[in-house]
């Protein structure tokens, strides 16, 4: 009864009543409104006005589409596909049994042509991707070798160790690089370290976390002290025929 009071004294808004009229209200609210409308003259007048409006608008006639409506749609579709369906209008004038089949065949020709074109586009894009990957790998390898050369040519000091570590870490990640380039890069780093730090190269390798790496397997003579930087470099740089 408290809910019914909400609808007494015609507190029903125009939008509420319109929603009730349009069947958008259901359940207990619809039942309450129904009960209210039954006793409210104002709501009855408003519903009557809505009904008259609906009657007026619905006086508009219903059209029957022209007999050639569907054919006109198909013709319009063919006009948008001139390459394959250029003679569709003529085919539509043919006996109905033929025109349907030819229409389907023409559309399928168009679909197959698009399929072949798409396959060619995908192949071209795949080859382009492979070339891009190969180019970036080559650039990376060249940059790596250049970094190693800088390391070799730089002045020997302990600051080489972090640089050496960084280079070797990168080399370890460069799995797709040719093996010769990786080995050469590691070799250059090793020689430079030996020349820079003198004795106890294993201690330094351990310090920068490289001792366990396969690229830095202990070579004969490493723990006994390293020769002067020059001869190690010379042996790698080919000055003594190595």
């Amino acid at each position, binding site marked *: 009864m408290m809910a019914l009071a909400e609808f007494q004294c015609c507190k029903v808004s125009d939008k509420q009543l319109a929603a009730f009229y349009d069947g*958008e209200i259901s359940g207990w609210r619809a039942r309450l409104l129904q009960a209210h409308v039954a006793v409210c003259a104002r709501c009855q007048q408003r519903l009557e006005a809505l009904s008259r409006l609906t009657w007026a*608008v619905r006086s*508009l006639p219903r*059209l029957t589409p022209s007999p050639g*409506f569907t054919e006109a749609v198909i013709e319009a579709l063919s006009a*948008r596909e001139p390459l394959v369906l250029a003679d569709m209008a003529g085919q539509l004038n043919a006996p109905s049994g033929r025109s349907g089949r030819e229409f389907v065949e023409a559309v399928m020709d168009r679909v197959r042509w698009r399929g072949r074109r798409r396959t060619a586009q995908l192949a071209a894009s795949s080859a382009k991707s492979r070339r891009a990957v190969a180019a970036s790998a080559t650039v990376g390898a060249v940059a790596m070798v250049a970094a190693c050369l800088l390391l070799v040519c730089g002045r020997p000091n302990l600051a080489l160790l972090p640089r050496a570590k960084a280079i070797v870490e990168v080399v370890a990640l460069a799995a797709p690089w040719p093996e010769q380039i990786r080995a050469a890069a590691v070799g250059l780093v090793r020689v430079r370290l030996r020349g820079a730090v003198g004795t106890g190269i294993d201690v330094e390798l351990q310090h920068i976390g490289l001792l366990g790496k396969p690229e830095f397997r202990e070579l004969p003579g490493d723990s006994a002290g390293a020769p002067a930087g020059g001869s190690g470099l010379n042996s790698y740089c080919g000055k003594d025929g190595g």
Partner: protein
Amino acid sequence: MRDWLGQAGADAGAVRRVLAGDAEAYAELVERHRHWAVNLAYHLIGDAEEAEDVAQEAFVIAYSKLHQLRSSGAFGPWLRRILVNLASRRRRRLSRRSAAEIDPTGVGEATNSTAVAVHAVLRLMPDHLAVVLVLRELHSLSYREIAETLSIPVGTVRSRLHAAREMFRRLWDAE
């Protein structure tokens, strides 16, 4: 007038066949939806010949974008959205013509003075109000369906419908 649920299954099968390359299946969709499409365009535009033209264009556009249809059973509501947009544009273009140039009588239909008057009133109304009034009163769409067609909230549908009815009543009484 509408039986979306019953048609949805038949539409879904036809749409799948069209997408699989059976173009004749599209003629089936056109046959099934042409009546309400032509009438909706006619009620929005007010000219019978323009209405057929707009309805045909809507079917052509729907065919070219059929691959974008998310649910194959929702062809009808989707076509309705396309048609309403096209009809609104055509309606704006036609509003620049004089009333004498527009033929509100249907193809083969007898002259209906009430229909002429209703069209005249609808032409005076702004697009956004005329559309909701036609969709509700003439095509019995629910508020939710109107909201989905026009991509507006249900509350906005309620407000616009109220405003449209008020304006129609005012203009109708003044006619």
